[in-house]
């Protein structure tokens, strides 16, 4: 049996969800070729029409095609979730590795700030930050990053502390490795896989948190096709046009499930304790 085939056979769950995630990403990339209508063009005469053959999922209050907007919504959600997770991952790991490697005052300062952020329900502060900075998708990402990095910093620090005093690190330092070299060639490679697995399992959660901020009006602004925002617009028409709420929610659900399952199965494959 060839290598990929045996991998797929051994890791069926992961393969299925990796394939589905790939499909979602491809839909996002090729959105302009998939959608039947422009997601921004409003046709007033067709406002709030129920799903039919022309508009598969109906239209919203401005007569925009809901299916097209949901497909474009994948782009918004994926892009912002990936940016968000990468920001948290990079900032958290950088600070955590620095705290663990240098120790002393740097460690105390970084970890006390992290403790402060952890001793506090994140979404509350995220709402305050997003609200104070002004509502936009970028500010929502900044707000969630500001409250989520400590988890990664703690993890990175604990990983660094585990390897810091091992012989090969001492050998690296004795053979004249600079601080930058030590961090880049020794600390980063030893910690990065665990951190990335954690980030992968967090993508779904981050999508939900971003959607919550957008739903509250502190994220994406109209006319951006973003699912949280679309659900907020749709809730005003709950009685007359429930599809405006139901379909973006289902799209969100399906995407979050795919990425949650992908993250979980990836962790199961790579987690050394399970092998």
């Amino acid at each position, binding site marked *: 049996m060839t290598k990929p085939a045996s991998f797929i056979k051994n890791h069926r769950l992961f393969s299925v969800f990796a394939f589905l995630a790939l499909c979602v990403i491809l839909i996002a990339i090729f959105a302009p070729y998939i959608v039947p209508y422009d997601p921004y063009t409003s046709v007033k005469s067709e406002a709030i029409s129920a799903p039919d053959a022309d508009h598969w999922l109906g239209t919203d209050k401005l007569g925009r095609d809901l299916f097209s907007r949901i497909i474009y919504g994948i782009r918004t959600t994926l892009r912002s979730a990936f940016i968000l997770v990468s920001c948290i991952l990079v900032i958290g790991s950088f600070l955590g590795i620095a705290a663990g490697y240098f120790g002393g005052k740097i460690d105390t300062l970084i970890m006390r700030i992290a403790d402060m952020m952890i001793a506090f329900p994140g*979404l509350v502060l995220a709402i305050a930050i997003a609200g104070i900075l002004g509502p936009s998708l970028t500010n929502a990402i900044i707000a969630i990053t500001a409250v989520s990095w400590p988890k990664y910093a703690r993890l990175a620090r604990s990983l660094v502390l585990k390897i810091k005093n091992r012989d090969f690190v001492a050998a690296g330092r004795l053979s004249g490795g600079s601080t930058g070299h030590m961090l880049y060639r020794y600390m980063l490679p030893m910690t990065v896989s665990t951190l990335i697995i954690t980030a992968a399992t967090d993508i779904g959660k981050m999508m939900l948190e971003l959607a919550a901020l957008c*739903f509250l009006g502190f994220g994406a602004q109209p006319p951006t096709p973003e699912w949280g925002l679309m659900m907020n617009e749709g809730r005003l028409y709950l009685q007359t046009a429930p599809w405006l*709420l139901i379909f973006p*929610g289902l799209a969100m659900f399906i995407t979050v499930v795919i990425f949650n399952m992908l993250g979980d199965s990836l962790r199961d494959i790579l987690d050394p304790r399970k092998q």
Partner: protein
Amino acid sequence: MTKKAIFQRLIQIIIVLFGISFLTFGLTYLAPGDPVRAMYAASGAVPNDEVIEATRTAMGLDRPFYIQYFTWLKNILSGDFGVSYSLSQSVLTILASRLWPTLKLALFAMILMLAFSIPLGMLTAVKNGKAIDYIVRFLTFIGISLPSFWIGLILIYIVALKLQLLPVMSTDIGFKKMILPAVTLAISMTATYTRQVRAAVLEELHQDYVIGARTRGLKESAILWKHVFPNSLLPLVTLFGLSFGSLLAGTTVVEVVFSYPGLGNLAVQAVTAMDYPLIQGYVLWIALIYMVINLLVDISYEFMDPRTKARMRS
């Protein structure tokens, strides 16, 4: 926890509160909006620039950052959280009036969550690998992958609009008004907590004393409720404290969905109206409540775990 440990935690709470106060104050200071204009806009009349400047001086907003911060901090320490720009009432009065509805909602959701997640978690742990285990785990997986505001709105649609069992909107905060928001909160929390109960009980089930109890011929149900359950309580209480904190945050979205007159709804209004004193007061209060709850949780260990007591005596 020893007295010394409790004391250290109290000190830590104070330090964190200082940090949070500095952070929120710094953020509002840097914020792009103009609170004076926002305040006048809320009252309906926008005066000329001279009046705005005069108001700014009167409110002390023209002074340097650190002076503003320390004045503000001094007032807060003496119990004065300032006056809300948009509601023209003392921040403390507003927060106090909104606190109880939110706590009531959170407690109700907690009770619902415990009533479902503990039996379900234990069931799935005991029936590990059986069909029921997979079904419940599948349901919990759906629960954690759904946005809570969507669950809430779908509940409104089905229960209130289609079946007309409960009122959609009502002004009082009676029991009926609380059912749907509490159920919404409980659904996503039950999903998370059931998994945690399952993991904790599963770990206890693999301990040696369980095998010992089985060989002594104890009934499976007696082992489960008299031995395994009390032992798995400890990690669960920690998680319980943590989930109460996320509940305080989670109520925000749900309160907005149901127009429930609680702290979260207030916070969103305050942020939208750029009502800085109210935002600052809200953030500090939530931080304080959250940390005090976690401290109480840690203290409660002592009453549950005989091992901590034994350690303290020695």
